[in-house]
Every structure is written in structure tokens, then in C-alpha cells.
């Protein structure tokens, strides 16, 4: 009670910082906070995975191929989630695999977002003809179903995780362009931009310093959502044999390797997919929370 009162008193004195205000709204969404915690565990595993994993991810225990998880008959504590057809420890592979998905998410979002923001800014400030050309090119990319375009791009570049990331980044990038351009155009008409121009700010300064910070909210939300899309698509490409190549313990690739054993050993199929689902779900929950916290229209004042 006292805390609430003093916090209120503080709020009267000085406006809370942006970050604190954001956290205030974000915290209200319980799902988003749970998502954040799961994401934190995911990030932790991605960084420290190889040191935490009980076994080496590629070590083959020849005596224990397709061993079931510990709670089933025949399971042992040394392989808690069982082993795969080559006798590799499932739990270790899942833990080590976290870093591939995390890496995919980070790299894809960085490339797609930075590229998209730059192109979107240019498009928003450019003369009409250039803007039209840029937007038509984005329309063309968006006309192809994303997974199909990524698949064909990977076929051109050669199947590997790096090429899969490049392909997915290219496919996701138009969303950022559109989003940035739309916010730039609506911001440009506002008075503060005009006044900055009157004071003598150059176009580059207007773009990067004046307008861009005010366009970031929807882009951040999009970044969170495309983080999960990137993980899903990379796993799908891995599953089709066009992403990470065996023996990399990438989750989608693990699923592809395990496919023929589905009716004999449910665990080799269930756990990698569950890992993908939980991660993607956590990120989407976070994305929903971010949107609610950053979108002023939805804020309850």
C-alpha cells in the first residue's frame, strides 16, 4: 500500500522514463511475462548450451540407440529424454540446438530489419517515382509465398543454415519496408518535422534523428513477431533438407532425420517439435505484450 502511494507520488513529480512506462504496461500482460521468462531460458541455453548439456551433442552411444525417455520402460537416467536412431542423447542435442534457432532469429531479424528500415526510410522520403519503384519491388517479393521463395533461393545458393538465413531475411524484409514507410509518411506531416526542417535540418538528419525514433514502436513489434517466423521457417527448411545439414542438432533437421522412426520411437519426433513450439509460442506471447505496451491506441490511460 505504502509502495503504491509513494510510487504514485513519484509519478506526480516526474514523468516515468520511457522504459519504466513500457515495463509498467508490459507487466500487466501475464502471458507476455511468462513468454519473457521462457525466452530468457532459451537465450541462456543458446549461449551456454554446450556447457550445460549432459553429453556431447554428436557423441554416439552405440549400445543405446533409440532408447526411450527415463519414465518409460527401458529408459535410463543417463539419457533423460532418450536417444535418437544413432544413439545420440536427445536432451543434449535439444539444448545445443537452441543456439541455432536463436542465432537464426537474431541474424534474420537484424538483416531484415536494418535493410527494411533503410529502404523504408528512403522510400518514405524519396520522390514519388522512386517510392513507386521500391514499393512495386516489394509487392513482387510479397507475391511469392514466403516459404516457397525461401526454398527456391536456398536451392540456388545451396542448402546450408547460412543460406537459409539469407533467404528468410530477404523474404521477411518487405514487411519492414512497408511498415517503416507507412509510419514515416504519417510522421512526416507532423509539425515537429516541419519545425526541424525550418530550423535547417538536412534530409539525412530528418530521416535518422527526427523521424526514425518515432517510427520504431511498430517495427519493434514486427521484429519480435518475425523472430518467431524466422525460427519456424528455418526449421521448416531444415525439415525439407534445405536448411542446416545433419549432423547439426538444429531442431527442424532433427525432425527430418527422425521422420522414418515416428511409429517406432515417438520421442525422437515429439521433443524437437515441442522445443520449436514452446520457443515460438513464448516469442509470440512476448510480441503480443510488446504490441499492447507500445501501441498507444490500446493503452488504457
Amino acid at each position, binding site marked *: 500500500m505504502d509502495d503504491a502511494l509513494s510510487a504514485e507520488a513519484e509519478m506526480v513529480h516526474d514523468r516515468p522514463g520511457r522504459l519504466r512506462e513500457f515495463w509498467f504496461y508490459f507487466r500487466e500482460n501475464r*502471458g507476455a511475462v511468462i513468454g519473457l521468462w521462457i525466452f530468457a531460458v532459451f537465450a541462456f541455453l543458446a549461449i551456454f548450451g554446450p556447457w550445460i548439456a549432459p553429453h556431447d551433442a554428436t557423441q554416439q552411444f552405440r549400445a543405446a540407440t533409440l532408447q526411450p525417455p527415463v519414465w518409460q520402460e527401458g529408459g535410463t537416467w543417463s539419457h533423460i529424454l532418450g536417444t535418437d536412431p544413432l544413439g545420440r542423447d536427445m536432451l543434449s542435442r535439444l539444448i545445443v540446438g537452441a543456439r541455432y534457432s536463436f542465432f537464426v532469429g537474431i541474424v534474420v531479424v537484424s538483416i531484415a530489419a536494418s535493410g527494411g528500415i533503410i529502404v523504408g526510410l528512403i522510400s518514405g522520403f524519396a520522390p514519388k517515382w522512386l517510392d513507386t519503384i521500391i514499393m*512495386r*519491388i516489394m*509487392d*513482387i517479393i510479397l*507475391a*511469392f*509465398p*514466403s*516459404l*516457397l*521463395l525461401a*526454398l*527456391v533461393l536456398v*536451392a*540456388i545458393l*545451396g542448402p546450408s543454415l547460412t543460406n537459409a538465413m539469407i533467404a528468410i531475411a530477404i523474404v521477411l524484409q518487405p514487411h519492414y519496408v512497408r511498415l517503416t514507410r507507412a509510419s514515416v509518411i504519417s510522421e512526416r506531416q507532423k509539425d515537429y518535422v516541419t519545425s526541424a526542417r525550418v530550423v535547417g535540418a538536412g534530409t539525412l538528419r530528418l530521416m535518422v534523428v527526427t523521424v526514425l525514433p518515432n517510427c520504431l514502436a511498430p517495427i519493434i513489434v514486427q521484429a519480435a513477431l518475425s523472430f*518467431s517466423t524466422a525460427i*519456424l521457417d528455418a*526449421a*521448416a527448411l531444415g*525439415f*525439407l*533438407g*534445405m536448411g542446416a545439414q545433419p549432423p547439426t542438432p538444429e531442431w*527442424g533437421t532433427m*525432425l527430418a532425420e527422425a*521422420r522414418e522412426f*515416428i*511409429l517406432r520411437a*515417438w520421442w525422437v*519426433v*515429439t521433443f*524437437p*517439435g*515441442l522445443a*520449436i*513450439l514452446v520457443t*515460438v*509460442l513464448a516469442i*509470440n*506471447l512476448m510480441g*503480443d505484450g510488446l504490441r499492447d505496451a507500445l501501441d498507444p491506441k490500446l493503452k488504457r490511460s
Partner: protein
Amino acid sequence: MLKYVLSRLATFIPTFIGVTLISFAFIRVLPGDPIVVMAGERGITEERYAQLQQQFGFDRPIYVQFWDYFTGVLQGDLGNSFVTKKPVWDEFFSLFPATLELSICAMIFAVALGLPAGVIAAVNRGKFFDRALMSTALVGYSMPIFWWALLLIIVFSGNLGWTPVSGRIDLLYYFPNATGFMLIDSLASGQDGAFLSALRHLLLPTIVLGTIPLAVIARQTRSAMLEVLGEDYIRTARAKGMSSGRINGIHALRNALIPVITVIGLSVGTLLAGAILTETIFSWPGIGKWMVDSIFRRDYPVVQGGLLLIAVMVMVVNLTVDMLYGIINPKIRKR
């Protein structure tokens, strides 16, 4: 309205040319010389190589090649498959009904469950039912569908033995391929159990392909309903003493449907992308599996032609949705 239609068409044409250009470019950038690929493991003499290069026109300037390709596309000529030697156009349209049948069933599944779920969630906003439905929808939305397919196979085909794992119908049955839609053809054939067999083959792929659209539609319906339920005319209807079933079902839903229809139209791309995975897993002989197989076989004309046809199809559907939207909502036309 005419102006709106024309302006939408004006953006369609350059996009179409661009899409053609991109799918044309792919065959020239793909690693491996297409002629060497065609020759296979026996190799090829230099004379024959030059002859083939001339035959396919690879020795001419690139813009001439593109012009030929573009005019060919407009006449429905997409070249022949390296593997089957049949025209890509014919192959596409002989396989397309399988994908269309699957997509339509998936969409019916998604709408039939998603629409009521969204309405019920919106009406019970904040209550247990709303939360349970929306959490489920978020799980569905985050679902790696290739894994979902495998799980369903484990449970329904493996443990319960209810559904077959692959194909469109049991090999037992044979009948002419009149419409290309297995459900209709099997029913028309009049053979005992054929229709049931087709239906059982269709069940799991439909669920798998429909899952993400289902989640999207449920979420979209809920938010559209919530928005409409806050409008004044709903309050008026309530004040008049109208029953809540009538308000929710007729007055609110009708207006909430507009954004939902857009979402349904826009999920065609999602469906086709999902079809790639679903068809590969269930060995469903549609265009998704055809594309994946062709990519692995380096059957360039097929990859090129398929990519183009799929993109054009997505564009046409989006254009149609835009037009419909313009008809339903006059405000859009003014922009």
C-alpha cells in the same frame, strides 16, 4: 469504382512483369548448367552441348531470351519439364486440383471452427472461455505444422489406426479422373467405400493445413467482433430490447465479417506455403510436393514455371479480395 478497379489493375501489370522477370532470372542463376543436368551422368559431347544450347536458345542475348519467355508465358507456354518432357503448364493444371481440394477443405475447416470460436470468445470477453480459446489459438498460430502433421500421424495412424498415412485414396479403387477432385470423383464412381477412403485420406492433411488459418481467423474474428460490439448501434439494438443472440449473430457479426473476409483472402499465400510442407509429409500429389520434388531434381523449367504460376495465382486472389473489399466498403475506394 471504375477508377479504383483501374488503379488496382495498373499496379497489377508491373508486378506481373516483375514476377515473370524474377522467375525467369532464377533459371539463369541456379548453380549447375541446365544442359549438363539434362545430359545426366553419361556426360555430353561439345557438339551436342552447342546444339542443345542453340535449341533452348541459351546462346542468344539475355533480353531476347526474356522476351521469348515472356511472350511464351502470355500464351501459356512455360517450357517442358526436363524429367517428364511434358509441358509445365499441363503438369501444373493436372496436379492443381489436388492442392485446390486440400486447400478448400482446409479453409472450410478453418472457417467452420474459427468463426464461431472467435464470436464466442468475443461475447465472453475476459472470461475463462475466452482465455482458453485464445490461448489455444496462439498455440495453433505458433505451430510448426510439419511437426503437428507427424504428431497426428503418430496418434491417428500409428496408435489408433484410423487414418492412412499418405496418398489421396486406397490403391484398391480406380476410376476415371473426371474433375480432379477426389471427393467428387469417388462419389461419382459409385464404388463401395471409395468416397469414405478419399475422405479418410483427406482428414489429417486438412487439419494440418487448416490449423494456422484457423488460429488466425479465430483471433481476427474475436478482435473484429470486439470492435463492432463497442459501436453505438449495438447499444441501440440492446436498448431496444433485442435478444443478445440476434445482436451478436446478425448485427455484429455481419460487420465483423469484413476484416475476416480479407484475412481469409490473404491466407491463400499461407495455404500454398503450408501446402508445400503438408503435401510433402502426406505424399499428397499436388503442386506443393511437385515443386519440392522438382527443386531436388533440379528440374528448372518446372521450378520456374511453378513459381510463376503460384505467384500469379496469389496476386489474382489478392486483387480479387481488394476488389471485393472495395465493393463491400466504399470508404476504401476513395484512397
